[in-house]
C-alpha cells in the first residue's frame, strides 16, 4: 500500500463526506491509502488577492508546516478550492523570503514552514503517479455508454501557474473518464464559473449559472456532469434543481471520485441529491443504492 497525507478541508469534512468516502474506496482499489492530517484548519477558502494581507496566509502556512513537521513532502486534497488556495499560498509564501519569515515569526511557538511541500490534487495523483493505464486495468465496472460532461469550474485549473491542467482546454477529466470507460462530452461551459459564493448572497446568480452549465451539457448529450469541488457540486445540484422549470431538462452531477469508485467496484457513496443521478446511471446499467 502506498500512503499519502491528506487534507480534507471543511467542505469535504462537513457537506461532502461522500466525495471522501468514494475517494478512499477508489484509492484503496488502486493500492493507495489516504492518511488524514491529525490536526488541520481551514485553508482560508478564498485565496486573498491582496499581496500585503499576510494574515490570510497564516492558516495555510500552519497546514504546510504541520505537513513538514510530520515528515511529509506531499499533501493530497480532493476539493479543488482547497487545492488552489493551499498551492497558491505555498507559492506566494516561498516566493519571497520575507513573507515566510514574517508568517513564521507570527506562528511563534508553532513549527516553522520552510518551503517545499507539494500540494497535490487527487486528479494529479491519478494522472501522474498512478497512471491511467493502471486505472484502466483496475476497472471492474466499466462506465460504458455513460456520457459525462466534465465540469472544471475555476479553481482546478486557474491560475495557470498552479492549475492541474491547461485552463482553456483542460483534459484531465476527459482522460480519466476515458480510462473508466465512459464517454466524455466536453462543453464550452465546462470552464466557466458556477457562481461560487454568490450562492449565499445572490442565489439567483448561481441558479442562472448552474442552469446555463447544465443546458450546455445537455446539448452535448450528457447524462451526467462531473465535478471536483463541493461548492461547484452544490450549485450544479441544489441551485440547478431550484431554478424554475429545472426538472424537465435537469442534468445530475457527481464528484469525479464517485465515478472513479463506481468503476473500480468501490462504494460510490451516492447520497440523496436534489437531482437524482440514479435513473441515468440505472439506464446505463449502473444501478447504485443510496444509503439511508
Amino acid at each position, binding site marked *: 500500500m502506498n500512503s499519502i497525507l491528506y487534507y480534507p478541508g471543511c467542505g469535504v469534512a*462537513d457537506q461532502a463526506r461522500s466525495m471522501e468516502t468514494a475517494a478512499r474506496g477508489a484509492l484503496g482499489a488502486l493500492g493507495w491509502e489516504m492518511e488524514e492530517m491529525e490536526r488541520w484548519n*481551514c485553508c482560508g477558502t478564498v485565496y486573498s488577492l491582496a499581496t500585503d494581507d499576510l*494574515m490570510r496566509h497564516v492558516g495555510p502556512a*500552519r497546514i504546510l508546516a504541520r505537513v513538514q513537521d510530520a515528515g511529509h513532502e506531499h499533501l493530497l486534497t480532493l476539493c479543488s478550492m482547497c487545492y488552489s488556495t493551499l498551492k497558491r499560498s505555498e507559492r506566494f509564501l516561498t516566493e519571497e523570503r520575507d513573507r515566510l519569515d514574517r508568517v513564521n515569526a507570527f506562528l511563534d511557538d508553532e513549527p516553522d514552514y520552510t518551503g517545499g511541500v507539494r500540494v497535490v490534487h487527487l486528479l494529479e495523483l491519478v494522472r501522474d503517479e498512478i497512471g491511467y493505464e493502471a486505472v484502466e486495468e483496475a476497472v471492474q465496472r466499466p462506465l460504458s455508454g455513460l456520457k459525462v460532461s466534465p465540469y472544471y469550474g475555476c479553481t482546478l485549473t486557474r491560475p495557470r501557474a498552479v492549475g492541474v491542467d491547461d485552463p482553456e482546454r483542460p483534459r484531465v477529466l476527459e482522460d480519466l473518464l476515458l480510462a473508466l470507460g465512459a464517454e466524455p462530452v466536453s462543453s464550452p461551459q465546462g470552464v466557466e464559473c458556477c457562481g461560487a459564493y454568490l450562492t449565499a448572497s445572490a442565489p439567483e446568480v448561481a441558479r442562472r449559472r448552474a442552469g446555463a452549465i447544465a443546458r450546455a451539457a445537455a446539448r452535448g448529450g450528457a447524462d451526467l456532469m462531473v465535478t471536483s469541488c463541493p461548492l461547484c457540486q452544490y450549485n450544479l445540484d441544489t441551485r440547478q434543481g431550484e431554478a424554475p422549470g429545472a426538472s424537465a431538462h435537469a442534468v445530475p452531477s457527481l464528484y469525479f471520485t464517485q465515478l472513479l469508485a463506481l468503476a473500480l467496484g468501490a462504494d460510490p457513496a451516492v447520497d440523496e441529491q436534489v437531482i437524482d443521478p440514479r435513473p441515468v446511471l440505472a439506464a446505463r446499467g449502473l444501478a447504485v443504492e443510496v444509503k439511508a
Partner: protein
Amino acid sequence: MSAEQDMIRIYIMGKAYEVPGGLTIMKAMEYAGYRLVRGVGCRGGFCGACATVFRRAGDYKLYADLACQATAEDEMYIAQIPSVPAERASWVLTELAPEDNPILALYPEVARCVACNTCTRACPQELEVMDYIQAALRGDIPQVAELSFDCVQCGLCAMRCPAEIVHYHVGQLARRIYGAYRAPEAGHLAARVQETARGDFDQELDKLEQMSKDELVELYRKRDVES
C-alpha cells in the same frame, strides 16, 4: 507563608508594589492593598472572573492567564480584564431541531477566522480554541463540544481575536446542542423518572419517613454496599 520569603516587585496597572514571592497574582494584588470586587470569583480556576493579561520584563509577548491560578513573578506588568463585552446571540434550545447546526447563522463572524491561533495562545485552560472554532466552521458540533468542554468562559480568547469572534459563546451553543440532541439519551434515567412520577417508591419512602432513629440505624448498618 514562611516569614523570610523573598520580596518581588510587580506592576499593577503600571504602578510598582513589593510583594512576597510565591503568591498567586490575585493574592499578590490583595497583599499590595487591593480589595477586589471585580476580577475575582471562585478563586479556584473555575469561574473565569479573574482574566488577567501581563508582560514580563524584556519580553514583547502579551501573556494571558487567570489571576487566581498564575503565580506572580518579579517584574511582571499586570492588568486585569474585569469584564468582556460580548453578546450572546438570541437562541432557544427547544426551538432548534436536533439536526440543526445554527452556529454560522447565529455567529456568522466565525467565518472570519483566519486560523491565526491567537485565541489558543490566550487560553489559560490551554484549550485548542482555534481548533474548535475551525470545527465550528465545518459544522462539527461534537468536536466543538469536546474541545471546548473545559472552558471557564473568562473571555480572554474573545478579547484577543482579530476576527472578533466570541469563542466561548460558540462553545456553549455547541455543547448544549450536543448534550441535548446528539449524545445518546440515558434509558435507565427515563425509566426511573417514570417510576418516581408514578409513585412506585412512595410506600417504601413513607415507611422510612416514619421509622425511629434506632430502626434506621439498624437498617443502615445492614445495608449492602455495591462493590
